[in-house]
């Protein structure tokens, strides 16, 4: 857990730029450590409206600079997008569970839209382990950071980039998937994660899924982020956001 010495928890923004239409990558100073899969809670406004912090996956942390990648979907993220290098941002964290694939063996990364963020962080910390990345999105504009992975397979729903269709199509064809040696790390929309969970069960692969839910606090006290798992009701911000395949009892 990291807090600024003055308890105001303000971090200086190093850079912020629009990487794709409506998608921003922001870098800010961060003096603690964090592990891939974890997230931070960002305060988007100086005052109390919007009130609650916004959860963002950590997309990288190197030399005291943390990066996040976010999509503008509402007021909070629109305010974040207005911040510039030199501004300060109030950050708390890191929170949540981390990706823990086995010590050896190939890893397959599956990201949907903004879900590539934590996978990018994992890949940077474990470069030789990532056998391939599979990145999906609605359109070409929603495919992020593809050039930062060495072997990458892309799918878009409208076919504007890579294969037309869902990202699970190139995934299940990959040799490391087909020979069942691959360990899956996936992050993205709930529908995609559920599909991967079901495929993994059917095809006998194991892996981890990073889920998303609205969060009131991010550190386990509001109980606003629970999900049901084979191990009972869990808080997504403390016992998650990373869960093992086969663990989540999908709501619908």
């Amino acid at each position: 857990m990291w807090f600024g010495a003055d308890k105001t928890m303000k971090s200086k923004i190093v850079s912020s730029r629009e990487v794709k239409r409506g998608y921003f990558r922001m870098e800010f100073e961060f003096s603690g450590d964090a592990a891939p899969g974890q997230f931070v809670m960002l305060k988007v406004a100086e005052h109390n409206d919007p009130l609650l912090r916004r959860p963002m996956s950590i997309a990288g942390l190197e030399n005291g600079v943390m990066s996040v990648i976010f999509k503008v979907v509402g007021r909070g993220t629109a305010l974040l997008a207005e911040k510039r290098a030199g501004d300060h941002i109030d950050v708390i964290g890191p929170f949540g569970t981390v990706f823990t694939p086995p010590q050896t063996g190939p890893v397959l990364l599956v990201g949907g839209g903004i879900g590539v963020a934590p996978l990018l962080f994992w890949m940077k910390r474990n470069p030789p382990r990532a056998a391939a990345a599979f990145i999906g999105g609605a359109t070409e504009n929603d495919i992020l950071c593809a050039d930062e992975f060495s072997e990458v397979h892309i799918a878009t729903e409208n076919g504007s980039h890579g294969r037309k269709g869902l990202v699970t199509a190139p995934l299940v064809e990959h040799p490391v998937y087909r020979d069942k040696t691959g360990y899956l790390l996936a992050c993205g929309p709930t529908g995609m994660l559920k599909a991967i969970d079901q495929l993994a069960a059917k095809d006998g692969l194991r892996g981890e899924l990073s889920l998303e839910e609205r969060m009131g606090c991010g550190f386990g006290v509001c109980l606003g982020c629970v999900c049901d798992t084979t191990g009972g009701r869990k808080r997504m911000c403390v016992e998650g956001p990373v869960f093992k395949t086969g663990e989540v009892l999908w709501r619908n």
Partner: protein
Amino acid sequence: MAELRVRIGALELKNPILSASGTFGYGLEFSGMMDIRKIGAFCTKGLSLKPRAGNQMPRICETPGGMINSIGLENVGIDAFETEKMPAIRKTGATVIANFFGDTEADYIEAARRLAAMDGVHALEMNVSCPNVDKGGIEFGGDPAFLEKLTAAVKKAAAGKTLIVKLSPNVADIRPFASAVENGGGDAISAINTLKGMSIDVKTRRPKIKRVFGGLSGPAIKPVALKMVYECVKTVKIPVIGIGGIASLDDVLEFLIAGASAVQVGTMNFVEPSICQRLAEELNVYCDREGIARVSALVGTLRTG
């Protein structure tokens, strides 16, 4: 250094800044983010005899300057609280107010008896904003005569421990409820719990909360809370603990001036986990700067007329 100590029933608090139930977990989640010994006390998540899984998701949403929740009183239950949480809580050196509720009058009495006897619990806070299953689901805190009877029975079970009764604001007039607590022998009143509210996602035309209604909290409710606290203060002689939307030192001062002996901070703990500690420090600095020797001298100093 001003005298910040305040007394609530038999309980002496080192300062009047407390954290509110349901916004501070079991007090353990904040370790590393603030020093729990620096605040007056913390109120546990509402406890019941049996563990509760709470309501279905989604159960929180943000609103202008606030949020709505319908957690459904999810908690680990009093047994697990005693064996799994309390040993660690005792080690923190925190002052612990156990918040509790029940589905029946008998549940309330038994929960109070268990918690009052528990090592490390300093006082009890009874949440009466819950449906009474014996009475067709009307809230325990919805009928003054019943509230008085319940308070008396629970006070007896609390065996000398300070009993705070936390009032619901979802009534036409809070004053008869404040009197009911006093007449029933309650040591103090805390007010307010969350206000009933609702929010709709216009894109999907669905309620943002699965149960449709939830409890509104945060800065948005402060003026309503302040008014109700003031009404309670005017009605009873027992101490009143002010709750609702507190986010700054000025908010704390408003409640104290209105007559609250202490305050609880709720939703803002989510936004700024160290806020209670900060407010206690700021209150101290304020008193010193203003030449106020004891914080109790501020209480009820509203100038009217």
